[in-house]
């Protein structure tokens, strides 16, 4: 684990009560701070120790919730909505477009570790379908042109 992440983890843990109901909160904070948007094994160990629970319990939670990952992802996780409204408004074409443009399949990360492409269920932005998120930022009414601009913005922000 890179050193600064280790320090961040210490700091995050110190900000939460040692109570296991804060597990999801802690994992969110840690993952958001990690440039590879995931929870590494050493961190799982630390969190388990801090909350006095089994490592398996932490992995169980990471595995269950779709926002968490125990495998490295890109700095920016693209979650494109594949639920009914976005689908009917053209999300399928956009997924194909993104796959081509980034040259990855859904679930994969670009070689420069900048983007991971994922699909998601409804993001609550159905009035502006098709919608997607990049990390926690929401975009709607997407067209290929807009997707180009959004990707460009994030690429400049390495």
């Amino acid at each position: 684990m890179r050193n600064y992440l280790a320090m961040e983890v210490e700091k995050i843990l110190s900000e939460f009560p040692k109570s296991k109901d804060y597990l999801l909160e802690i994992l969110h904070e840690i993952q958001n701070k990690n440039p590879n948007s995931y929870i590494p094994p050493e961190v799982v160990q630390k969190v388990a120790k801090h909350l006095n629970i089994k490592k398996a319990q932490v992995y169980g939670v990471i595995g269950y919730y779709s926002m968490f990952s125990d495998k490295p992802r890109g700095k920016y996780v693209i979650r494109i909505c594949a639920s009914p409204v976005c689908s009917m408004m053209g999300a399928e074409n956009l997924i194909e477009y993104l796959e081509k443009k980034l040259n990855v399949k859904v679930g994969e990360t670009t070689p420069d570790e900048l983007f991971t492409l994922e699909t998601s269920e409804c993001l609550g932005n159905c009035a502006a379908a098709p919608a997607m998120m990049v990390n926690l930022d929401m975009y709607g009414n997407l067209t290929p042109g807009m997707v180009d601009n959004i990707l460009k913005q994030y690429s400049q922000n390495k």
Partner: protein
Amino acid sequence: MLKEYRIALRNSGLINPESIEEFISADGYQALRKALKSEPLGIYEEIYDSGLRGRGGAGFPTGAKEKAAAVICSDCEKYVICNADEGEPGTFKDRIIMETDPHTLIEGMVIAAYSVNAHRGFVYIRGEYKLSIQRVQLAIEQAYKHGFLGKNILGSGFDFDLEIRRGAGSYLCGEELTLIESVEGKRGYPRIKPPYPAEHGLWGAPTLINNVETLANFPSIILNGAKWYRSIGTENSPGTKIFTISGDVNKPGYYEFPFGMTLKELVFDVAGGIKDGKGFGAALLGGAAGTFASKKHLDVQMGYDKLKEVGLTLGSGAIIVFDDTRNLNDTMLNILKFFKHESCGKCIPCRVGTSQLYNHLVNEINKNHFNPSNIYPELIRQADIIAKTSLCPLGQSPILPLRSLWQNILESNSAKH
């Protein structure tokens, strides 16, 4: 154009959601003041008499839930939870409330907590809703500073602490007992009901759990009274409802209206009619776990019971509109994929069944001569078994869109051929 009637969205767009001062000058926290001066009994009876029903989808009488949590024990540990894990496709009303008027939600929660004598509460917001989380967090901090949260609220002697818990991407956690598991820091596996949360909820304690929109109705009901609330809407569905309209309409968005509006009014007058000059094909009411309405339902009143009479559900108030050129089999496939993806796998009928429904339909659609009558009756038979043998609402849901799509739309189409 029909004028909206806003209660849950009373301040939406009118005040700055980040300013507690603006909220206060719009009569904010007046209902809380009033509530703290009356007995808790008076509060839950007022809510009961108002006829308010849960806006998360189930439509259960809110006052009855409150009463159950209030009377179960007097001085024991109790909790209040706001369910803001909005994941039903087509639904985004809770997000709008949290983003545009977070204090109305907090005020509703403190009133609810006082009525059942709970001293700690949680707002469980889905992790994807960044702006909602930020706005509610800021509002909580402001409410503490102004004495609307914390110790001895407004000098009443009542204490209540409130914090946010974030979900992390699981549709199932929108179900109340599953949500409680998640607040406890666990995987979102459903619990067996009963016991209900009002008896055995968070950490085994009595817990009142309500949807965002439900709680956002509390302040106005307390301020204006149950009678006033009952004068709006219909007899069995009093008050207003936020409808989120999406799909093939000219003006998709969120709109609050008294119950009793017709689907036609909502689609054509409110949401501007069908896009690109096409005709109305169908509307999916209530999201993936909802039901397909056809042209013949355009004049049905939008209320819990009126819809039920014709085999439809209101659910969360989502209305997804399809023009008459849409292929609804593709939509059905998409819905089945959704259930397959979100099934937690705890019960075998749901785990295996949701995949099977999807596979059957996909295989049939890929055949050269796809004929719905070859497959839907069988899918419905299977979905019915899944519904009867599954533990939680997810397994009980696929039957709803499948059966309604077949009975209301596909069956009559195929009879024409």
